[in-house]
């Protein structure tokens, strides 16, 4: 029979390999496509950069909580600004400002911070993150929660 022809057998093997090859590429490609699919191209999240009003709206020596953006905006007595993330450095709960004792407290595990963000007690390993606060050319404060700054950063206005 012709099937015994070695040339034919070789050809058939090639065609089988071709089939398996394309299946292999397809499976590989499909996994890449699935990964692409799983990675969102657009995010429905608030932008990290936001306007926080004019500097005159803040009293010197005050702390203002922005619950939505998870930020404390502090204006020191001498008038300079800094911004703290209100996310606790322990396990990510949102801290509260206790006006009676002038402390920032975490409701989850009892960490306590001062207004500079330093840990006073509790399990928190680090002081609260200090984030970028700037003033744009129209005099409006702009906070960017995605940019960390050093602990002695202040904005003078």
């Amino acid at each position, binding site marked *: 029979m012709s099937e015994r022809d070695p040339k034919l057998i070789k050809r058939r093997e090639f065609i089988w390999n071709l089939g398996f090859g394309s299946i292999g590429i397809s499976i590989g490609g499909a996994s890449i*496509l*699935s990964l*692409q*699919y*799983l990675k*969102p*191209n*657009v995010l429905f999240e608030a932008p990290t950069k936001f306007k926080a009003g004019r500097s005159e709206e803040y009293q010197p020596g005050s702390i203002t909580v922005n619950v939505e953006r998870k930020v404390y905006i502090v204006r020191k007595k001498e008038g300079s600004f800094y911004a703290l993330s209100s996310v606790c450095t322990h396990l990510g709960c949102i801290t509260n400002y206790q006006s009676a004792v002038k402390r920032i407290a975490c409701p989850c595990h009892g960490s306590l911070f001062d207004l500079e963000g330093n840990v006073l007690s509790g399990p928190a390993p680090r002081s609260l993150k200090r984030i970028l606060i700037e003033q744009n050319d129209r005099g409006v404060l702009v906070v960017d929660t995605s940019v960390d700054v050093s602990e002695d950063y202040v904005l003078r206005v």
Partner: protein
Amino acid sequence: MNKFIDKIRSSTAWKSIFRSGSIKSNLGRSLLIFNNLFLHVLPVKVKEDTLRFTATFYLGITSFFLFIILTVTGIVLMLYYHPSIPQAYWDMKDLQFVVSNGVFLRNMHRWAAHGMVASVFLHMLRVFYAGAFRPPKQFNWVIGVILFVLTLLLSYTGYLLPWDQLAYWAVSVGANMAGAAPVFGEQVKFLLLGGNTIAENTLIRFYVLHCVILPFFVTMLLGIHFWRVRKDGGIKPLFEKETNIKENSEVGVDD
């Protein structure tokens, strides 16, 4: 290559899972099938005649594979879908406009769904004309009919999920048809819609039906359906070849 396969097959891990010894003997081959949850729905021996294309047109297996495709694409699509008004519609638009390969998956799901309805229906016709509903296959015919109805229901419930005009009005029509049924029609419609109008409740109900309840029953019944095919004496071909009845050659799993 074969040596490598043999080595795997004789490993402890393989044996602890498949528990069958050699497959060189007919007994070994049978045990492989009997002892495996996934394989035991298949017959140990298959009549060659039933494997011809014209015997079944492969409609059953086509339906099954379409169901697999639908399950896989469906689960993946759920990752970007919120069953709420009007977010459901925006999610469709997002799949179309911004999710990588979203259109491809959605179209695959859609065409596979159309294909499954068609192939299940043709499968039923084939079974009917082959007379495969006769004893001892009556029960499997009934299961098959239920599966057909479930397929239609899956198609119907999935129709509402994009929450566009087509979805809304198709489901309105369908719900009113249910409402027109005698005796319990109105109550069924009320339960189906979760209220008197097609609204948020309806969408979530259809979503749960489409993604959980109906697929669950289809999977269960499919298992029984396949198992009964074997128990009831295998496939009954549409056109039986006279000559092959006498000496059916038998085919094993492996050569």
